């Protein structure tokens, strides 16, 4: 119990620190947006007066209050999910832009991360248990080869053959243009077909890490005395493989899985932009291209917070899986 209380406390302290840093760091930077705009105006030969300065201040909504009040407003706005307006899309708030993109990413990247972890771990368990067998060689060499493919290269290859040459699957987008996103079966089917290529790319390129990591852990754990002792006591092969070896070999991978899940919300910039997928990764790319600071900052904040949340959950889960860290 104390383990959980301490973890929860630590979690809130870290979240607060991350949110506060997000507030402090931009304000520590020399200069201000107003000055930058004035400089640009002056450089282009326009006359800059005090009135121009005030006009820009009002336009950008520059606060005139003390830092403490700004900080209070900032926290309050975060709680209300108010992050200002985005420059990339006309008349759209940052929250709405992200809310529109997030489900796409969560479903695509979330599902593929979980799938890659599950499949990779199972393959790793099998390869490690049957080490030096033919299946082990195929799994190990195969996943190493595929992990050596950069995701964008694999994505382009898939697009070229499956989409461009043979027209088996759509070339771009999250759904056929013209359709209105809804939860109807026909729309979901359409979205599913569009997600096949990006999903394959994501799974194949991240699978190897799980396979190789799990296989190595398995082989290390196989050398442990409790495995030998289990065999000496005539335990069933399945009991040894799963409850004695895999169960212990899984522990380091749980932490890695937490980290992988935490980065899901940030999307996969490369894969999403190759496939024109309407997720957070594409949104982030748009934001960077348009110097859309409110959008960028909010996405980064979101990545940080979700990272912290999943690490926290993975930590709690770790406590359930490993009695040694509970104290």
């Amino acid at each position, binding site marked *: 119990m104390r383990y959980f209380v301490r973890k929860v406390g630590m979690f809130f302290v870290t979240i607060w620190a991350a949110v506060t840093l997000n507030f402090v760091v931009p304000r520590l930077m020399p200069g201000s947006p107003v000055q930058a705009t004035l400089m640009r105006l002056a450089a282009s030969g326009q006359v800059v007066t005090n009135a121009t300065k005030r006009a820009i201040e009002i336009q950008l909504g520059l606060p005139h209050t003390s830092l403490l009040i700004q900080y209070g407003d900032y926290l309050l706005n975060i709680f209300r999910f108010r992050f200002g307006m985005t420059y990339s899309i006309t008349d759209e708030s940052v929250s709405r832009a992200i809310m529109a993109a997030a489900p796409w990413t969560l479903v695509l990247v979330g599902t593929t991360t979980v799938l890659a972890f599950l499949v990779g771990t199972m393959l790793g368990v099998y390869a490690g248990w049957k080490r030096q067998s033919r299946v082990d060689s195929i799994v190990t060499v195969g996943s190493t080869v595929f992990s050596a493919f950069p995701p964008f290269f694999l994505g382009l290859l898939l697009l070229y053959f499956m989409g461009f040459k043979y027209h088996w699957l759509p070339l771009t987008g999250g759904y056929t243009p013209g359709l209105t996103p809804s939860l109807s079966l026909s729309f979901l089917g359409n979205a599913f077909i569009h997600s096949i290529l990006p999903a394959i790319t994501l799974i194949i390129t991240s699978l190897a890490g799980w396979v190789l990591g799990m296989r190595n852990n398995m082989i290390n754990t196989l050398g442990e005395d*409790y495995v030998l002792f289990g065999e*000496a006591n*005539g335990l069933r092969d399945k009991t040894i493989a799963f409850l004695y070896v895999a169960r*212990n070999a899984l522990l380091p991978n749980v932490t890695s899985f937490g980290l992988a899940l935490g980065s899901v919300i940030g999307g996969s910039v490369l894969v999403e932009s190759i496939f024109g997928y309407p997720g957070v990764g594409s949104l982030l790319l748009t934001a960077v291209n348009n110097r859309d600071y409110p959008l960028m900052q909010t996405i980064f904040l979101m990545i940080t917070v979700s990272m912290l949340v999943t690490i926290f959950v993975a930590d709690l889960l770790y406590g359930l899986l*490993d*009695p*040694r860290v509970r104290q």
Partner: protein
Amino acid sequence: MPILEIEGLNVCYRPERGVRISAVRDLDISLERGEFVGIVGESGSGKSTLGFAITRMLRPPAVIESGAVKFKGTNILELTGSELRNQRRGGLALVLQSGMNALNPVRSISKQLGDVLKAHSQKGEHWGRSEVRARGGELLSMVELDSEVLDRYPHELSGGMRQRVAIALALSLEPELVVFDEPTTALDVIVQASVMETIKSLQRSRGFTAILISHDMSVVLDATDRTLVMYAGRVVEDQPSKTVASAGIHHPYTEALMKCYADPRADKVELQDIGGTPPDLSIEVAGCSFAPRCSFASKVCFLETPSLVRSELIQVACHVRLPVSPMAKEVKVVRN
């Protein structure tokens, strides 16, 4: 009929790269039911390899090259996977050197005991939670532990407690032969003594045959009925533990080993190390493996490998102490 007969056993380590090492050489041992036998020797003498070979627990690169290990008449080296697994119940058990790590860190003691019992449950047996707990309480009290240990995880137990739990797990299947491979080496002297007491009294009360493998001569002599001294993969001496420490016929290596241990109660302690280096097990040399370190070695010792020679209750493999080889006798005569 002896419970265990080892005939012409040869075990070697064959790594993928590197040299082949023969760890156990042409070994013959016979154990009677209920005997408590100690095997002593320095590191690399092949004693642990032998213990693992007896329980069929050797893993690559270890290879059994030839010989037979007959347990109650069946050569266990010929058993297949499931036959071997069945042999674990009422058969052979092994208690490992590092009992500290012999327990699965993420399973409670009762779960681990349940794993063992369920793996060997026979028709009509059901190991539910309460049955496992009842049997667990019995087993733990046997090794002088409280039954509340059942709910603990290994990391919550001390080293001595863990080794006791490991012994309880090994005995849960009522084995007839238990190999204890350095069961107390990882423990401090006081805990070591109490764990050894438990092993001794269990062996006496339950009547299983036991093999105690240790590098510690005093532990072996104190606990066992019969002592085998191993050197370079061979048994060089085999005699009742009572007489190992006394004067009489001994292999020079045993004598040297005895000088390595001191009686803490003695007024004056004289310790002597064994000169020279342990033998290189990767090369086959003719003659006695101990000859290069032996101060009594004569010419024959370098030419002919001595075999165990019986003289009443003792067996010693030494050309000098129990000469049988015609060549050794010749040497004796010439010397006289």
